[in-house]
């Protein structure tokens, strides 16, 4: 599964990428997880299976949904507490959950 994380500069979400990669590795899953700034997201969305947005950029969700719609990719906002605590395991589980729904 390919998981795309998006925030303003792609900085704070990139912290989460490492944590999620570790969680995925522990569970024996080979996922591609990467973070980009909002302005570049348009070039990356088609390569993702699921798009997660940093909670501080949640106002961007509607635009993201518009970008993701042609590819049928689910988009959602990461829970603030998990985001703050950089909880890779929980965010990974969240990504899997919404990917299944999508």
């Amino acid at each position: 599964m390919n998981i795309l994380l998006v925030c303003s500069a792609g900085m704070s979400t990139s912290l989460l990428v490492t944590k999620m990669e570790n969680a995925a590795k522990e569970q024996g899953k080979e996922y591609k997880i990467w973070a980009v700034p909002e302005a570049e997201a348009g070039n990356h969305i088609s390569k993702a299976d699921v798009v997660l947005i940093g909670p501080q950029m949640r106002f961007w969700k509607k635009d993201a949904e518009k970008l993701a719609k042609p590819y049928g990719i689910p988009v959602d906002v990461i829970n603030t507490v998990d985001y703050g605590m950089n909880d890779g395991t929980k965010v990974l589980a969240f990504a899997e959950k919404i990917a299944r729904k999508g």
Partner: protein
Amino acid sequence: MAVMDKLTNAVENKIAPPLIKISKNRYLDSIQKAFIALMPVIILASFFVLLASFPIKAWQKMIEPIVGYFWGANGSTLGLLSIGLAIGVGYFLSKYYQEKNANVNPFSGAIISLFSFLMLFPVGVSEEIGAYLPANNLGSTGMFAAIIVSIISIEIYRFLIQKNIVIKMPEGVPPMVASAFTSLIPVFAAVTLWWVIRFLFQIDIVNLIMTGFEPIVAGGASFIAQFVGVFIDRLLWFVGIHGTNVVTSVMQPIWLDMLGSNVKAAEAGLAIPYIASEQFLNYFVRVSMLPLVVLMLISAVKRYRTLGKLALAPSIFNIAEPVIFGLPIILNPILFIPWIFGYLFIFTFSYLVIASGLVPAPYILIPWTVPGPIAAYLGTGGSWAAALLSTLNYVLMFFIWLPFYRIVEKQALKEQRENE
């Protein structure tokens, strides 16, 4: 806490949505994307300015004969930024319209926008150097002209394409050739308009727009406007919205105008005209969460210690999200006061210190992830006083946070004991 609920509700549902709507407006969004695309060039310019003014005597002496070369690199990048901006706005605005009509081509848009803008700078001829492009207003001063000319040109372009006022080639003509003809009428319409204005009517529209925007720039660069900017920035962050992102989309052209003027003044050896620049905000005001991280690292609350360790490295490099969402600061009524008024205090304090002449104003752009004191030192061309002011602000924020943090910590400690 009914008051707090009301406040949060008001920010989240009343204040934030219109601000976000403004920042997501197609024009401001295109301008912001153009600036993001130009950022490497702006940083390159700043790097050369830094080299030209690097505060080591031996270095200064060594480069003295060629110091003009370093300023020259700035002149050909930041000094010509409006050209890049015209291309960028033309490209990204066309890209927006491309989603509505596939015949709008971003590259054609960029070209139309570029030459529309250049039409306003009649090429001159001098005996010494031959043909030349007058570059005085192609830098930061021409930005508003570049933006407005680009927007109008792209509006004409996309209108004609959407209304299908184009030259249609018969089937069988290769698509490449056909598309070149498709944009022929729009190019003529958009670029010729500027020719008529600039050459036929002899209206110096760049100067006109500059003069028109002068009050906006002067107002936007003022203490009050930037103070309000910081206030909105913090207020939005308080409800967990990226306030800096929203404020930047409106302030960016003004900030770059300020930066351009500051660099120009520094090159000429004059006083730095603008204090409350984006650089000022980054080096002195939006200081990192480090004071809180230090408090959390020595906390008796286990969750705080974990968060402190996790947030230490990001905080050193000004990434605030782990603390903002982890502690959390958002929607925390007790931390509301230091979060909003602490930073407004630091803003006012630093402004006064610089205005009084004790510390020089920054004029070199250092990327925002560089720790405050280092950025302040480099950004002022090597002022220890600036580094000291930035450091002092970390300390001040520490003591502003402290009493409020203690209350939050006490509650967390109580919860921890109850759960054990």
